[in-house]
């Protein structure tokens, strides 16, 4: 990897100042994506600003009926949290499927969301649950936050601090992982919320997206059968050596059906 300057900051304020002063600096959370990218010399940050252990970014709590999770919270903490399991069990389950145990011991929710890898798991939950991304400057609705492959609404020196999840009536996640990498070939998060049914798809397209046809069909009747033959714009899906578009479109349907079946097995 290219050389860089490592800075362990003591506050978000210090991190923000460093980001503003050094346009080629990068934030380091768990480093589970950034470090491999740097090792492959696909990134050359001038500085790594380590916000991994900041107390301001940790903690899982119920606040005013919402589940609020600090950006530096590690995947294993979300997967093992009694509060998350009680409030949104599907989110704890999703976290338990990310990467592998060693990755879950270091990777952070804020890092995953800010990176917005098109095959990452968390964006599906954040979008389907209609969560709010809280940053050093403002609060951004999930529908406005994710903007396609590795793109988000974040300004260059803006830092994700917390995620606030409204509690759904019921929710479930189903993922078809790539057998080698563990990344989602297709992951579908279905949430039955106060504002209606929301379905978010990761892994299959150039970025996480909602599937409006499925949302409408499931709002009408929460049943896996209504997804059969349902329209999904396959032209927009990823096509690579792992799977052609049509295969991915089918995987999305199958994962959506599995998520609905899992959701139906939950007592209201």
């Amino acid at each position, binding site marked *: *990897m*290219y*050389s*860089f*300057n*490592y800075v*362990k900051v003591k506050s978000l304020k210090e991190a923000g100042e460093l980001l503003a002063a050094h346009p080629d600096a990068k934030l*380091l959370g768990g*480093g*589970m994506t950034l*470090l*491999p990218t740097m*090792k*492959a010399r696909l990134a050359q940050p001038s500085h*790594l600003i*380590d916000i*991994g252990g900041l107390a301001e970014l940790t903690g899982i709590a119920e606040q005013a009926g919402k589940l609020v999770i600090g950006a530096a919270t590690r995947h*294993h903490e979300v997967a*093992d949290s009694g509060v998350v399991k009680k409030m949104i069990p599907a989110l704890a389950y999703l976290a338990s499927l990310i*990467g*592998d*145990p*060693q*990755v879950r*011991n*270091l990777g952070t929710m804020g890092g995953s969301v800010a990176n917005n890898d098109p095959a990452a798991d968390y964006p599906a939950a954040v979008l389907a649950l209609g969560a709010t991304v809280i940053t050093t400057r403002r609060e951004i609705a999930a529908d406005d936050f994710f903007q396609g492959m590795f793109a988000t609404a974040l300004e260059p020196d803006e830092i994700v601090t917390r995620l606030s999840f409204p509690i759904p009536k019921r929710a479930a996640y189903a993922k078809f992982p790539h057998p*080698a*990498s*563990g990344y989602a070939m297709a992951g579908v998060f279905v949430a039955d919320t106060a504002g209606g049914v929301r379905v978010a798809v990761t892994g299959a397209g150039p970025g996480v997206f909602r599937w409006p046809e499925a949302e409408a069909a499931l709002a009408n009747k929460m049943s896996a059968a209504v997804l059969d033959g349902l329209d999904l714009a396959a032209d927009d899906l990823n096509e690579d050596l792992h799977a052609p578009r049509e295969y991915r479109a089918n995987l999305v349907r199958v994962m959506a059906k599995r998520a609905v079946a899992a959701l139906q097995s939950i007592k209201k």
Partner: protein
Amino acid sequence: MSTIAVTVNGIKHTREVEDRVLLANFLRDELGLTGTHIGCDTSQCGCCTVHVDGRAVKSCTMLAVQANGATISTIESMAHDGKLHPIQQAFTECHGLQCGFCTPGMIMAVAGLLKDNPDPTDAQIEHGLEGNLCRCTGYINIVKAVKLSAERMRGKAR
């Protein structure tokens, strides 16, 4: 360059390191702890697994400077007074290794798994070892070894 202080296998070390040095290289090259293997160097194979502040991590995907102030355990900490750790003993008895290259990382991953779940099912063992590859594909005996070591460690705890 940064100065870091780490406690590795109970011994405190203070060293100057280049910021880009990986924890795996620090352990091997600076401290001579070559039991931590580097297999893929792309955070896939898990051969470099060590424990940092009690959690299993891939030391090829962590900077040594990130571990400043941490307590680290490597495979060298497992055996005591010439006696193998129960996980090592079970791997030996169940033929849980063939070439042995993945074994240090496998053992450290198993230690992490059993800490969280002292009585795992086969499916939980498979899920818990997803971050470790055995290129000899000796997984069946590895799962057997995990079950045997879990049994013995639970017995000891009682």
